């Protein structure tokens, strides 16, 4: 593929993306339509978050997209007071891990989540989030 036809959709992921292209670029289209998706291996049935194009278990590349729905349990989180280069404008923010059982999701807590209400093990949901710079990511919210 020539450079000008390169599919660089993944460059839109997160405050700063370090990856421009991947065989799961469709993840970005799903984010744009308001959905956080994982991949499911059509051959062996394994579920993957983050989404993978290839299954290391059965070597199949026959994947289907499925939506991350329902709640996951908060495994842990941390609020950063310092940020790496390019992320200063986001401070303070919290990174976190949610356990959905068949897979886990790594992301951020929503900017409006009150840390005083956050407890390890609590149910949270994963939702698409548009960043001030126009980039897209996803964040965790306390389940209703």
């Amino acid at each position, binding site marked *: 593929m020539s450079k000008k036809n390169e599919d660089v959709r993944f460059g839109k992921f*997160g405050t700063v993306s370090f990856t421009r292209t991947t065989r799961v670029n469709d993840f970005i289209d799903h984010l744009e339509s308001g959905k956080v998706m994982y991949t499911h291996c059509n051959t062996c049935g394994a579920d993957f978050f*983050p989404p993978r194009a290839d299954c290391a278990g059965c070597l199949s590349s026959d994947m289907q997209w499925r939506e991350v729905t329902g709640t996951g349990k908060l495994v*842990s989180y941390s*609020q950063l*007071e310092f940020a*790496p280069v390019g992320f200063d404008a986001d401070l303070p923010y*919290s990174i976190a*891990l949610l356990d959905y059982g068949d897979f*886990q999701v*790594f992301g951020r807590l929503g900017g409006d989540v009150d840390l005083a209400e956050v407890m390890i093990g609590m149910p949270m949901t994963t939702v698409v989030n548009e960043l001030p710079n126009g980039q897209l990511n996803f964040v965790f919210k306390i389940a209703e």
Partner: protein
Amino acid sequence: MKKVAIIGVGQSTFVRAYPGSLRELAFEGFKEAITDAGITGKQIDASVFCSAPEYDKQRSPSAVVAEYLGLNPAPTFYVETLCSSSSTGLKLAYSMVASGVHDIVAVIGLQKMSEISSAESQERMGRGADIQWESPFGTMMPAYYAMHAKAHMDKYGTTLEDLAAVRVKAATYGQMNERAVYRKPVALDMFTDPENRMSGPVSSPLRVGDCCANADGTSCLIVASEEKARALSKKPVWILGVGAASASVNLTGRDRLYGLKAAEQAARQAYAMAGVGPKDIDVAEVHDCFTIAELLAYEALGFAEPGGAKELIQSKETYKEGSIPVNVDGGLLSKGHPIGATGGSQVRTIVLQLRGEAGDMQVKDPQIGLVHNIGGVGIYGNVTILGNL
């Protein structure tokens, strides 16, 4: 398997900014190690360089450093496992010598982190995680270890004071270590004094005092076959066990955050190979890049039961006079953490301890020592067991 020994050790004084180039830095540890071994560079038949290369402006640094140290035409190459690069280098050197392919191998760990700014350095360390799926969220090493700290506190009731106690112990010995970057005393109340720098938040629950400092430094280990070791050295220290394991980079692949599985697996391998257990270890160096990391290490290595690390640090059993002295050279928290040099520096400390040459930091008559060195946030686990016999 053939026996393999360490016959020479060296390291530079770890500093915030080394006033010289990378190759000149490497010379400092190398000279000390070959002098210690009583050999010349010409007797070294292979060299392994260990660092995290994104800090280096030089492409393929092993080549220029080998040239500067006079190690041509012996083969030289580069290995990298982030913060455990020189433990990986030692395992490779062990394998190279145990196989009979080489007789004397130099393992040179080095890092000149000051070539880039602290913020750039943090950004690079963040990219030691999954750059496709984690780094776009703005991750940094302290934040990942902070997540482990929070999980450990939640599961086992570990407290902020338990974390601070690790730093207080490190500073106790860092003051005695002329090679350490941080040599001031640290007291528990500094962590609760909002005016004190130690209490400043970094990534909750970790504070400035919970984190080790970047540093420039180098370490060098001379690894030799049994035949060469017996001919050349009056005090060889034997490599009894080398364990190594890997884990998923992305935290989504971890089954727990209150421990590091790769470290537990590496420990099991090293203990089995050496034919010893946790109770046989007389002195240990563990990877305390953050205070929580030392507590995780106590449990991974079997020095404490799961959840028992807080009692171990509070009982002072990991002080020099305790039942299992840990990091009595000040650890990474006091020495500083020049990524690629750290593992070799830990091994140097244990070699000096086993020889009875650790000065004010000397533990009473140790025979078996252990080194625990982690790359990334539990991505690479390495445990090495050394002994006098």
